[in-house]
């Protein structure tokens, strides 16, 4: 890449059910945020690997509503907590990371704009909240009418395996929101983004799996060309909701427990850990079965001349032992493609956003 090829802003945006992550280029040594940042700072692979030149920001893709009062609104403003006041509706909506704290304080479930990887049709505030969260993270663009407005590459899920659900509405809506904010949006398949984010060493050949909140997204690419992609609707939320139903806990509490202390070691101190292990196992088995089924029935899978890597990313892939458990179940089912390695992404929570950023930069 030419050092001065990018005077525009470029962003990678991982729009997940649970979290939204923005990756932006930061000029090395300046520490400034990436709108208009020179991608010269991302000119070498070493720098990109170090992540020193990419800045990430993550927000919960969630919100909670609290009763409206001028005092509350004043406090939120003073503390700079992202929120939206609707005095007409007599409520204040706190969104992003802070929503979790408020939900804990109020003993309420957080609400989410998205469900199972796409905008939740049952959530009336989904569009408005997604827009607010994106605006709080990206800030307004430089305007649609200008040629130099920022390029945002945002992730979209693949179609669920065996289902014909349309993802067009979700993609078009996110695109519209970003366009209205003054950006130039481009979609990228979530699994492909994982490959672009973590498999440059294999020339972007391999299998990328993003285990997120709503979906597990899988993509096989050969020399950066997506060959096969699909998703399964079992992921973090599936584990949380089922474990919550069994234990009687709130799903949010289950999620926090899962993220803080769960690990695969076969010995579980309490019931929540045990239940989590059961549903984690169910999710991994479903993913492995889907992988086998998809690769076995797709005629277009290339004959690779050497084993290819498989990389796991996403918050659901974080617990210690996840990779080993996944690998064990995968080999049990005689996976049809020869793999050189199965590994967790260098930065599982940011790999997708990073891949989207790399794609955006390569498009400039």
């Amino acid at each position, binding site marked *: *890449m030419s050092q001065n090829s990018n005077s525009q802003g470029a962003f990678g945006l991982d729009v997940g059910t649970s979290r939204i992550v923005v990756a932006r280029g930061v000029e090395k040594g300046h520490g400034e945020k990436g709108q208009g940042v020179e991608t010269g700072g991302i000119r070498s692979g070493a720098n990109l690997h170090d992540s020193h030149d990419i800045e990430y920001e993550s927000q919960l893709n969630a919100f909670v509503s609290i009763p409206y009062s001028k005092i509350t609104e004043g406090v939120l403003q003073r503390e700079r907590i992202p929120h939206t006041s609707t005095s007409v509706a007599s409520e204040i909506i706190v969104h992003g990371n802070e929503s979790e704290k408020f939900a804990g304080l109020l003993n309420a479930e957080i609400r989410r704009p998205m469900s199972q990887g796409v905008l939740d049709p049952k959530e009336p505030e989904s569009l408005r909240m997604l827009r607010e969260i994106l605006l709080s993270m990206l800030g307004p663009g430089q305007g649609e009418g200008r040629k130099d407005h920022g390029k945002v590459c945002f992730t979209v899920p693949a179609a669920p395996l065996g289902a014909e659900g349309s993802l067009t509405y979700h993609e078009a809506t996110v695109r519209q929101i970003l366009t209205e904010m003054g950006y130039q949006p481009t*979609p990228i398949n979530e699994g492909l983004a994982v490959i*672009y984010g973590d498999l440059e060493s294999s*020339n*972007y050949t391999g299998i990328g799996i993003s285990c997120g909140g709503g979906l597990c997204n899988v993509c096989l690419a050969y020399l950066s060309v997506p*060959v096969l992609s699909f998703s399964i609707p079992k992921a973090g939320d599936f584990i949380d909701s089922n474990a919550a139903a069994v234990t009687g806990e709130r799903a949010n509490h289950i999620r926090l427990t899962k993220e803080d202390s769960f690990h695969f070691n076969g010995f579980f101190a309490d019931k929540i850990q045990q239940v989590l292990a059961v549903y984690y196992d169910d999710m991994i088995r479903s993913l492995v079965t889907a992988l086998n089924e998809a690769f076995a029935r797709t005629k277009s*899978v290339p004959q690779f001349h050497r084993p290819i890597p498989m990389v796991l990313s996403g918050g659901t892939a974080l617990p210690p032992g996840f990779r080993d458990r996944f690998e064990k179940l995968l080999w049990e089912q005689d996976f049809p493609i020869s793999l050189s390695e199965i590994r967790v992404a260098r930065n599982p929570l940011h790999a997708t956003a990073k891949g989207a950023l790399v794609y955006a930069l*390569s498009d400039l």
Partner: protein
Amino acid sequence: MPKIERRAECIADPVERLRYLRRVTAPERNLLPPGRWRHAAWLTLAAMLVLAPGPRTKSAAGTFERERGLLAAWSYSPTNVAASTLDSATVSRSATPATPSSGGEASTLIPHVWQVERSRTSELYSNGLRVDLTFQISNRPRAEYPIFSLIEGSPAVTGRGWAGQVSKTGSTPVGIVYHTTESLIAPFEEDQNRRLKQLGRNLIDVIRGERAYHYLIDRFGRVFAAVAETDAANHAGKSVWADAQGLYVNLNDSFLGVAFEAQTGAAEAVTPAQIVAAKALTEMLRSRYGIAAGNCVTHAQVSVNPGNMRIASHTDWARDFPFAALGLPDNYAVPLASRYAFGFDYDSTFLRVAGRPWSGLDAADQLIAKRAVAEGVSAARYRAMLRRRYKDISSELAKTGLGASGPGITGLGKTGPSTTAMGKEAVAEEVAK
């Protein structure tokens, strides 16, 4: 592929590496596995050999009968008006459109189609056409393009400079070039729904990335807007066409690109739904821009290879384009502008793909022969003059930035062969000159 991989591995910057890979794999971004690229090429070659015509008898009477029919067939065309300026003495014009060969109702009249409603994601037109705008993308704005007069000879021969050859300029689309995507095609069967949709979806991404066409018609007959009509799309590359206004060279700015999700030589041709959609889209575009029926042509008809001065550098729709079903006359019969105005030739590769010479080639040859006699030079000498003119124009266009930046889009799966090899005959002719 190993060569590509080795080159990519030399690029340290991951962004630059991805950019390189995206560039070199652009035509294959259609799920076609690497093991099948070679396979598909062999299949295509085999298909072409099977379809190649045997030797034809060329009796004088037969030739005469054929040419008479061809002249009658194309004489109504608006393009014929341009051709007639070359040789008004020998070509008669008819006010009556020719009867299409089969099906459909061909008309040179421009249909009236209006927009019924528009949202951010779609447009509905009075003829039932629905255009999906979800994936529309911008490219560089359409440039003002020159329209060259139908004079012959180079500036040196005519005594006029290159600028003197430009009769006028244009800024709106005057025609449509039809393409095939040459992408991977799944069997058009109910149990293939998911794959068909996925292939179409991936294709859209590729087309958007390449800024390849203005419209894509997928196999279900859905019409997707790709590059905005206000912008030029990278679809025609080095190309030539002519109408009553004059000659158009490199058509990215002057013509709109419409692509069928289809593969040359595939067992399944375009689907009935695609035909219906293409007809409605053609009507809408003709109505919007006043496009003449004779300017609705295929990529093979307009594509040229300046390197060897051959026509049909890209061979999509070199045969069997359903003109009649789209309500268009048989434009294969229109004298080929690249041949009669610039002396381009054709070779055996073209014949294998097209099956037989288009009738428009014979008509163009007639024009050249007559004009050469009028000029008092041999046909070969006259063609050389025409070729020199093309080279003058082409080099001047390159200076102004209107030279086609790329070779045009043959299709995204690249199964259609290009007529790049210069035949022995042609080489001998060039040497003799």
